[in-house]
């Protein structure tokens, strides 16, 4: 069994343990069963922040070192960040529908800034696909990856800057706003889902290296087609 497979299997076990904690922890008196969603909603978005932070770090490192590995890491982490942001928004919408009576509200600062963050990182991935030259692709995405990360603090602090629907964080520097059993379940899920991100990141990098090994000479499908030599045609 290779290293990546071991990571994925252990991540699945960690997520299983997280689920057990999530469904055995006590529920909130007012929100009932829906309060269990916090156990995946908050960790998914924390991992999205982490993933976009890693993309920014990798982007800056590429701009300094110009090595393929940093470009690969930036792309892999941004892709995972998008997946976890979608999962985080989906869980938040279900929770919002149950607790606030509405799944989405563009007037809410946290929801709107998170949606913008998602669109920008989908744009980052689209930019990569639209740029065939590897050097140019790495440069353009490194600049965007380094700049786009400003949205992470913007999303995080949006609940303090604007008083709208979304609550402030449950875990703060001065303590948590939940009973210990619920807090333990949440922390276990934070660890499990962060580990899942790390395992998936390693898997994504492994796939990227395997794909690059196939295209070892950097040739593209269209390279086999030569342009017509018009001067020779004119001579005939």
């Amino acid at each position, binding site marked *: 069994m290779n290293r990546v497979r071991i990571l*994925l299997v252990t991540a699945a076990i960690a*997520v299983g343990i997280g*689920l057990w904690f*999530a469904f055995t922890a006590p529920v909130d008196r007012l929100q*009932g*069963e*829906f309060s*269990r*969603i916090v156990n*995946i909603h908050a960790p*998914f978005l924390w991992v999205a922040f982490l993933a976009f932070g890693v993309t920014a770090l990798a982007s800056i490192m590429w701009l300094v070192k110009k090595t393929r590995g940093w470009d690969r890491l930036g792309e892999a982490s941004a892709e*995972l960040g998008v*997946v*976890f942001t*979608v*999962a985080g928004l*989906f*869980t938040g919408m*279900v*929770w919002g529908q*149950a607790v606030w009576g509405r799944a989405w509200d563009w007037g809410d600062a946290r929801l709107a800034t998170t949606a913008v963050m998602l669109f920008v990182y989908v744009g980052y991935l689209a930019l990569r696909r639209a740029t065939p030259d590897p050097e140019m692709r790495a440069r353009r995405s490194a600049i965007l990856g380094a700049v786009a990360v400003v949205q992470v603090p913007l999303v995080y602090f949006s609940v303090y800057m604007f008083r709208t629907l979304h609550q402030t964080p449950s875990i703060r520097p001065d303590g948590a706003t939940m009973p210990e059993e619920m807090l333990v379940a949440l922390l276990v899920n934070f660890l499990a889902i962060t580990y*899942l991100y790390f395992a*998936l990141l390693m*898997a*994504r990098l*492994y*796939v990227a290296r*395997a*794909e690059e*090994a*196939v295209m070892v000479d950097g040739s593209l499908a269209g390279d086999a087609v030569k342009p017509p030599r018009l001067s020779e045609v004119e001579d005939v």
Partner: protein
Amino acid sequence: MSDELIVIGTFVLSYALIIGYAARLHLRLRRAKD
């Protein structure tokens, strides 16, 4: 629909998205190795 069912469904669909992403990676790896 009961609250429990909606919550379980939310967990299942969220992890299905992540499993789907992992499955896509697996397919890309197989294609690269073929």
